[in-house]
Structures are given as structure tokens and as C-alpha cells.
């Protein structure tokens, strides 16, 4: 085993872990989700309200895909960084989305 420091430099080691299937699957799924949303909107496939709800669901699924297939969400050795950063991300996301909705409705005078 190499010393502690070498351990940390592993990021650019050529360690062999076999073919990264999960990345390929993640890539395909995320592309499918993206193009599904695009097609639904372009084709006016559903009534307005339903459409909004569906692409919202697709967006949330997209986040899940990113977290599990690319962000190594489950490989949680090491300290509590995962939890902390997820909590922080959650707070910021809520602030930005809720804040934007609040700002962009202009006191209820805007319909979307």
C-alpha cells in the first residue's frame, strides 16, 4: 500500500475498475429524459398544466440520475461531506427556485 498522500492522488491514477457501465447507462438515461422533455413540449403533447407537471417530474428524475450514476452518491466512505454538501445544495436550490417563483409572479399578476 502506498503512503497516505499517494492514496489521495489516486484521482489521476490509471486504476482499473472494469468497463464503466454505470456511466454509460447514466448518460443514455439522462439523454432520454432530456429529449423526452423537449419532444413533449415541441409536440404540444398534452394540455398546458399537465405538460408542466410532467416536465417537472422529468427534471427531478434527471437530478436523481445525475446523483446516482455520476456523483457517486452511494460510495459514501469518508467523512460527512456527502450529507453536508447535499444539505447545502438543497438549501440553495430551494432558495433559488422558490425565490425565482416568488419574484417572477409579480404579486400574482403574471399567469406563469
Amino acid at each position, binding site marked *: 500500500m*502506498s*503512503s*497516505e*498522500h*499517494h492514496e*489521495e*492522488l489516486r*484521482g*489521476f*491514477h*490509471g486504476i482499473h475498475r472494469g468497463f464503466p457501465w454505470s456511466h454509460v447507462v447514466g448518460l443514455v438515461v439522462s439523454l432520454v429524459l432530456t429529449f423526452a422533455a423537449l419532444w413533449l413540449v415541441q409536440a404540444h403533447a398534452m394540455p398546458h398544466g399537465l405538460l408542466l407537471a410532467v416536465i417537472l417530474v422529468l427534471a427531478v428524475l434527471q437530478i436523481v440520475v445525475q446523483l446516482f450514476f455520476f456523483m457517486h452518491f452511494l460510495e459514501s466512505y469518508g467523512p460527512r*461531506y456527502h450529507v453536508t454538501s447535499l444539505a*447545502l*445544495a438543497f*438549501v*440553495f436550490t430551494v*432558495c*433559488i427556485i422558490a*425565490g*425565482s417563483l*416568488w*419574484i*417572477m409572479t*409579480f*404579486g400574482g399578476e403574471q399567469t*406563469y
Partner: protein
Amino acid sequence: MHLPGYVNNVATPFFVTGDPMIYASDVLIVLTLVAIVFVLTYFKKWGWLWREWITTVDHKKIGIMYLIAALLMLFRGGVDAMLMRTQLALPNMRFLEAEHYDQIFTTHGTIMILFMAMPFIFAMFNIAVPLQIGARDVAFPYLNAISFWLFFFGALLLNLSFVIGGSPDGGWTSYPPLTEWPTDPGPGENFYLLALQISGIGSMATGINFLVTILKMRAPGMTLMRMPMFCWSVVGASILIIFSFPALTVALALLMIDRLFGAHFFTMLQGGNPMMYVNLFWVWGHPEVYIVVLPAFGIFSEVVATFSRKRLFGYASMVASIMAIAVISYLVWLHHFFTMGAGPGVNSFFAISTMSVGIPTGVKVFNWLFTMYQGRIRLKLPMLWAIGFIPNFAIGGATGVMLAVAPGDYQYHNSYFLIAHFHQVLIGGVVYGMLAGMYYWWPKMFGIILNERIGRWAFWVFNIGFYVCFLPQYELGFMGMTRRIYVYPAGMGWTALNLISTIGAYLMGIAFVLIVWQVLYSIRFPERDVTGDPWDGRTLEWSLPSPAPHYNFARIPTVTARDAWWAEKEARRRGEDVQKELRPLEPIHMPNNSGRPFILSVCFFIGGFGLVFEWYWLAILGGLGVMLCLLLRSLETNTDHYIPVEEIRRTEAALGRL
């Protein structure tokens, strides 16, 4: 509005034509290029350039390249500023046309924020962070090189617009609907969108890189609460980068889709909403100002402690305020568009959250003052800039709180009051901070201490010039002068103040020349730093020789206290027998150099250029190049090497450290 005769931006000839100033620059650019090629060929330096710099993954060299680029961009943005101030010096000036003035304030703002301030902070990250935490490089050295080259080619793309295709002219904020295709055709805005997008990928990667570096690569014993304050500020800035840049990416991408592919996200037609762009832009834009100012705060903390010979006052409260600023800065973005009409509830909320940023910032200012209190202050150049910063930031902060009063902002908004305010914090905070950092770490980078005497002149001329330039602008704002106007009539009572302001701008220009002169003079008559610790420093970078060997630490130090290097020196001064390093040297594991980050970024540049001109075959070609580079990297196995003990011993012996 496009004035007849100034339609060159619209008709899109490939090379910008029609203005003698641009022809002059064309000639200068060609001459400079020829000179560079000649010098490199004549002195047979091409190989050296490739091996030592272009392919390097060494954080110290990448830091130096960022620094050079930032200074060049400070020059370019500064020339823009001088041109604008010349045009505004007197009423009814006929120096710049309207169209030209628009382009200049746009490139000035864009370059200063994204291509001067950002690379300058990244220069400081790279130069200082690994050395301060006792690491041998950053977590992802290859990615670090990619970040630099993406920034470099993004900056090149924007600057190219000056002579090819025409510059963007929609302001550094680039608000639609003005910047939509029908109202602003031509490649100018495309240059803006793609240059920012490309360099933005690099910034994002840098944020991730340094956060991971600091969390994962600290020397044994260096707990988070023993870290130098600069590293804490980098943590804050990196978190802000990671969470805010995506908003910019989205805003720019949607606007680009509107412009290139005829979508309607931000048009006035077909359900588009330009106000959403404004919202998204500032979701990034406000954190961005803290991204650039937090590292400056970090540098001031290091400098003030070192040159007062005291430990930093209120360390824990400093950390807390950095983190508080990082979080609060996500809750304030609307203060950039109070006048958009979101209503009293929204405006009140964002006004109060904005004012609350003043609390942690105030804590920091008092901590610096208390650090100096009863310290043995040495007014070296870094300290001079740090002290110059404090009154600057006090005024900038106070006027910031004035702007945060939403009803008041309806008066100040987009006036010269605002211009004066943000220059006060951006120059007084960021530029002063980066210059302090540059002077502070220059010996560590190059082994040379910059000449004190010329540096003092530069400081005083700049500092005086700063107040002469910007204090009158507060008054001009109250008198009704709005920003982004290229000409004003006589008889408004604005003339004297504008003239004074222009004189101040020239003084700052002279100060910049003095700094260049100082650097050249110091290279010619160097005062060498042979100790590695010219300022009697406190943190680990000063335990190394100047410049540090490429592996930084022959043995990774073990940290037992905050201000680790100071603690060790104190122990020695007390005559304690500081335990001599007994661990044997071990082979050091280092990443290999690679030319691929450079080539990858060239491909990004080619693809970006193709999109700017809507030459889709070129864009696709660039994109394929990018993918090929990524693929080759994924298949690469030989990415690192070991430095043998013998070589380390030889290097250390040559540095007198064995």
C-alpha cells in the same frame, strides 16, 4: 438603435472596418505576433514553451500563467476605461461614437469581471493553496490545466471580437430583449455568450478542484480550524462557484438558443420572458461578486497578521463570517433589479437580506483592525495595499447599504452613484486585494522581492487617483447623470466633476505603468529572496525555498498548531530543540505533463468560433475534437510518475535544505 455609418457591426464583414483606431490595433496585433514568433524562433524557445508551460500541470506554473493573463487583461480593461473617461471628460466630446462607446463599456465590464478578476483570484488559489496546506499539487492537476486553458481560450475569443466580427455591445449583463437576435444581430453578442460559456466550464472545474484539494489534501495534523484564513476564503469562494455558475450557464445557453436557433425563452413574443434572464443572471451575478471578493478578504487576513506580527484576531469569527457571507449571498440577488417591479413584499425581503450581509463583513473589518491594534506594523507593499483597502471598503460598504434601501434605489439605480459604488468595492476590494497578494507571494513565485520604492509610488498614485476618479461620480449620480451614456450636454453642471474624474482615471493609468516599470526594474536589478521567508511569515508556504521545488515538500510536514510555520519558528526562538526531520525521503508521486488540456481547449475555441459565426460545420468539427480528447484521456493509463529519492536529495541539496 444602430446609427447609419456605424453599421459595420450589423453588416458583419469578417474583419472589423471603418475605424482608424481599430486599424491601428490590427497593425499592432500583427506586429506583436510577428515579434513573439520571431523571438521564440530566434532563441529556440518553442520547445521550452511547450514542455515547461503549455503542457505543465504544476499548480505553481499554472498560477503564474493566470497571473500574467490577469495583468494583461487588466491592461486591456484599463485601456477601455481610459478611452471611456476621455470621451466623458468634457461635454459634447467627439472622441468615440455611440456604437463604439457601447462596445467599450461592454468589453470593459466583461473583461474586468470575468477575464481579470477571475483569473487573478485563480492565480492566487494556485500559487498559495497547495503550499499553505502542505500538499504537492491540487487534487486534479490535469483538470487544473484544462481550467486554465479554457479560461485562456475563452478570453481570447472575447478579445478577438475587437478585430474580427465586432465586439458585443449589450453591456456586461447582456440583457434581452436588446441582445436578442432581431435587435442585436451580428456576431458580437455571440462572442460574449460563447466566451463566457467556455471560460465558465473552466471556472466551475476550478471551484470543484480547490474545494476537494482543501477538504482532502491537507497535511496530517492540519485540521480545518488550523487552516490559514486564505484557504478558508477559498473554501467559501469555491462553494459559491459550484452552486452559482450553473445559473449563468443556463442563462447564457438559453439566450444562445434564442439567438442561434430562433427559440423564444427571452423574447417579447410567443410567451418569452426577458425578465427571467435578468433573474437568472443575478442568481449567479451576486454570488460572483463574493467569489472575487472573498479571496481578497483571505489575502488581507494573511497580510495583516504577517505584517502586524500577531496572530489573526478572532479566527473563529472570521471563519463564521466567510460561511455566513457564502450563504447569505444566495438570498440577495434581487437587489440588482429592485426597479423591475416585483412588488413591495419581494423588494422588502431582498432589501433586508442585503443589508444583513453588512454584519459579517463588518465583523471582518473589525477583526483586521484588532489584529493591527498593538501589533508591530511594518508598512511593506502588501500591507500598504491592505491598509488602503479598509477606508475604501468602508465607503463602498456604506454606499452599498444605501443602494440596498429599495425605495432609495429607485433614485440611484443605473446612475453614476452605482458606478462609483461598485468600482469602490471591486477596485478597493478585489484589485487592492489581488495586488496585495501579488506583492506578498511574488518572492514565493519568482524568488525576487519587488522594488519597494517604485511600488510605493505606484500605491500612492493609484490610491489618490482612485478617490479623485470615483468620489466625484457619487455626486454626479445624485445630479442625475446615468450610466452608459456616451455624451452629455454642457450646462448640466456635470462638467467639472467629470473632468476631475477623468484626471483620477489617468492617475490610475500612470500607477499601472509604474507597476509594470517596477516589475521590469526588479527583474533587471533583482533583490533575491534567499531565505524563502522574506516577510517573517506564519504559514507553511514560507517554510519552503523561493521558488518552491516542483514537488513542493520533500517531506509532508506534520502540523501541530494554527500558523504552523510561526509556531515552529517560535519554538526554535525559545531554544527548544525542534525535532529534526528524521523520516527518510521517499519517492514522490507526481502527475505527468500533458498537452491534451491545451489541445482540448483549442477544440473548444474552434467550436465556439464556429458557433459565433454560425458556421455549423466548424462547430461540429470542434465538438468532435473535444470528444476525441475526452475519449483519449479516458483510455489513458500512463498518467503519473515517481521522482526517485536520489533526484529529490540532489534538488534539496542544491537548495541548501539538506
